[in-house]
Every structure is written in C-alpha cells, then in structure tokens.
C-alpha cells in the first residue's frame, strides 16, 4: 500500500492494522531440542493452549508464517538451514528465541559445534530465558511480542529501518523475566 511506505497512514488505521496483526500471528515452530517439547506443550497441549492468544501454530510452511520460535540448541551444521528458513518467511516477520541455548549457547557455551546464540545468524525480537522455559514463560514472551507489535510504526518497518549491515536491528530486544 502506498500509504504505508510513505508514512501517510492515519494513526487510527495503523492502530487497527497493528491490532489485527498482533492477534493473528501464525507461528512456525522451529523445534530443535528439549525446548521444542515445552513449545509443543505450550502450543499443542490443552493446558497451555496458545490459540487463545490468537496465535495459530499450524502454518504449512515458513512461507506462510509471521513468527518463528527458535527453540533448542543451534549447531554450526544447522545454522545455514535456519538462515534459509528465516529468509523464506515474508515480511513483516518476528523471531522469538526460546531457551538458553538459542539465546546464548546455554549449557553448551564452550562446545566446538554449537552456535552461541541464534542472534548471530538472524535478528531476534524476544528472548525467553530458561532451560527449558516453562510453557507459561513462552506464552508471556508471545504476549510481550504482541504488545510490541501493537505499538509498532508500520512505515518504519516497511522501509526496513534499523538495517545495520548484515543483521537487522529492530530496536531493543525484549527479555522475558523468569
């Protein structure tokens, strides 16, 4: 839409779009390791149901997803696949890094084959710490992300502001407490 990239979208409309976007996130679950099970419990189990937040965990492919939750250890062998997956997602896209392994390498910080944090490869919006984080913590991460989306400036995002060389920066990332 020409109005969006020229920054001429009226505020109430931006608010409406942002509201709509934040409550219709399609999550691609990039479940790698133990955190994938907690993510599965958060997404698939009736107890920590994520669909009540408006987040649907069932896109058929990354090309149809808005949000990716990287849960589990990222190894150097796996890193190119993650980059390719991220590039397959259409804009606007968000990344949640779940668990200490994806945040910073976690308990394998000194390993020869682990990438110390997925933010070395793709930009991250929300970090959810824990080993593994409880499903409630992941849900809080998603809620915080939704809050951020609601307050987003669509024009700046469309223009791709905050591009910083190879890795884009999207403002300060959020760290979830607990």
């Amino acid at each position, binding site marked *: 839409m020409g109005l969006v990239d020229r920054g001429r979208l009226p505020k109430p409309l931006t608010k409406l779009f942002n509201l709509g976007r934040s409550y219709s996130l399609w999550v691609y679950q990039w479940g790698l390791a*133990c955190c994938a099970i907690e993510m599965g419990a958060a997404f*698939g189990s009736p107890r920590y149901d994520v669909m009540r937040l408006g987040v649907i965990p069932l896109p058929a492919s990354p090309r149809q997803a808005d949000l990716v939750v990287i849960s589990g250890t990222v190894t150097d062998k796996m890193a190119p696949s993650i980059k390719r997956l991220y590039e397959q997602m259409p804009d606007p896209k968000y990344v949640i890094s779940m668990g200490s392994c994806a945040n910073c390498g976690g*308990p394998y910080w000194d390993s020869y084959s682990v990438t110390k944090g997925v933010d070395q490869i793709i930009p991250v919006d929300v970090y959810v710490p824990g080993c593994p984080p409880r499903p409630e913590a992941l849900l809080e991460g998603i809620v915080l992300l939704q809050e951020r989306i609601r307050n987003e400036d669509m024009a700046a995002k469309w223009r791709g502001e905050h591009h910083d060389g190879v890795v884009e920066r999207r403002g300060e990332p959020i760290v979830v407490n607990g």
Partner: protein
Amino acid sequence: MSTVVDRQQLAYIAAQAADARLNVELETEGMTLNIGPQHPATHGTLRIVARLDGEQVVWAEPSAGYMHRGYEKLTEVRTFPQVTTLVNRIDWLGSFANEVPFILAAEKLMEIEAPPRAQWIRTVLFELSRIANVTLFLGDMAVQLGAITPVFYAFRDREHVLNQIEAATGGRFHPNFDRIGGLKEDLPKGWVDETKAVMRKMRNFCDEMETLIVGNEIFAARTRGIGVIPRDVAMQYGLSGANARASGIDWDLRRDQTLPMAWDKIEWKVWTHPDGDSYARYWVRLQEVREATKMVDQLLDGIPSGAIMAKVPRIIKVPEGEAWVSTENPLGEMGYYVVSKGDTGPFRVKIRSASFNNISIASWVLRGTYVPDVITILASLYFILGDIDR
C-alpha cells in the same frame, strides 16, 4: 544371514532393476528426496537423503549431526555434579533416566551405594520418566501416520506425570535430581498418594490408546509388515529397548543385570513380540507403559524409610578406574563408560546412547520401502535427536 534378509536383498535388487529400466525407458534419473533436517516428522533435526524410483526408496541414508553438541568433550572439563546437569539433556523426554547410569558408574568407582530409600525413589522416578517419554511416543507415532487426536491426549496426560516429577524434583524435565550417593531431597508430603492417582489416569490413557490406535484398522494396515527387522540383524546393529523386544529378543536390562536399584524387588513382566515390524514396536511400548504404571504402584507401596544420601565428602573426587554401567532407558540401552583419574571430574566419558544404534539400521531397513512407509518406520524406531547426536 537369514532368509528374511535375502528377501530384503531381493527387494533391493528389484528396486535397482526397476530404476535401471525406468532410466532406459524414460531417460530419467531417480529423484533425490531430502527429508529434513527441519520436518515435523523427524523428531528433531534428522535429515534423511533418499533416492527414489517413483514412490519407492532405492537408497536412503540418515544424516545426523545437526544436534551434535559435543557432550563427550564437554564432560572432560566439568566436575561430576556438573556433568549430571549436562547429561539430563541427552534424551530430553525421559531426563531423569539419563542421570542414573552416570551416577551409578561414579558410585561404582567410589565403591559406595546409595541408601535403600534413595534407590527405591530413584527407581520410581526412572519409571515415571519412562512413562513420560513413551506416552509422547504413543501420541507422536499416531500423528505421523495422520491421526491427529492422540497426540493431544498424550500431551494432556503427560502433564500429570510431569506434575509429579516437578513436585518431587522441581523441574518438569531436566530435573537434575540425582547426586553421587543418593538424591538431592526427600519426597514431599502427599506425593505418594497423588502419584498413585496419576498412575490410574495413565492406565486409562493406555486403554484409550489401545482402542483408538492399536485397534484401528488403518493403523494396522499401515504398520503391519512394515519395516521388519529380523532378530540377528537387530543384534548386529545393537538395537535395544522396545525395538529389540519387538523383534523377539527377550532381553531387558532391568531384569538381566543386578544394579543397586529396586527392580529386582517387585513383580513385573517383560513384553516381547515376534514380528519385528512397526506394529510390534508400537504394541510393545504400549504394554511397557502399562507395566511401568503397575511397577510404580508397587514401588510406592514399598519405599523403605531412611536416609536419602550416603556419607560423601563435599568435594567429590572419584578414585582412579574405569566403570561401565548401562540401564534400560525408555529409548533402549543407555550406558556410560566412565574413565576417572582421581580428579573432581571425569577423564573420559563414552556415552552409549540407544538411538545412535537404533538409527544406524535405517539405511538397511529403508531400502525398497515406499516414501510414506519411511515415516512410519522412523516413527516406530523412536529416536530422540539428542540421543543420536549427543
């Protein structure tokens, strides 16, 4: 090798001939299909490269290593308690079960034994982690065959077991509860009765799965006769756990070796199946979960009172030596070969993980199968990537 293997060989040769014929007729090459490394059906980051002729697999090779975290190197720079924390995360569904053989090996080198109460509680938690692990398998294999409902039941009922593990140890999984010489803490009040109630729920779950899945004719059609692994091939590859028992090998490490745990003090059965196909593997695991719930009930009735921890020094230095301990983990035989040089940390730990051997048979068993059967067979072999890749 037995005649069943010859049948597989013939199927393979026939597939190759079909490939050649196709090439001559249509001047095409077989297609190379890449399943993974990110794929909902691969339990994690396993990549299978398959060469196809139409819908039939001519050659398949699993490519592991996407979750290789370098455990054996990391254990060399950590102390024994630190290694316990790390080792939880190998088989990340049944985490307590990973700690136990390592702790037992360290205790063997130190020549101490945990007090009886600790041994019984260890066994209870071990069986609970088996139930938590295999429950997910029961739902997961179904969802990979296309039946979506059972996995929700599995996650829901698994929550009850995880609640109990969390109440006792503080962690839903990765409890890090075992210590050299005993356990970290005693059980909370009321835990025993709650766990018995949970075991009743799990038995209902098993009955549900039996009617929903095992009795389902679609499931039977898709799994009977698929991925047959004969007994001698299974032994050569070192298949263990339910995979081995489903091929008719009557072997269960809980019964066939004496360890300072409480399995020899209760009555229970080992389930085997002679077929060796995917149906057998699912069926054996279902019976094992049911058996495990009964075992937990018996164990809970018999926990002796007493101390939780033996007398060990604050800073533990394990004397020089080598020890091998393996246990019947939910995935199969998991063992640790611990080499110690009298230091606070091990010198070398070789982690023998069940799924590594279980998956090494994939290239043999996947020859000549159809693509949907590839998923069925892998689902029935049940591996966890952390266990393969360590």
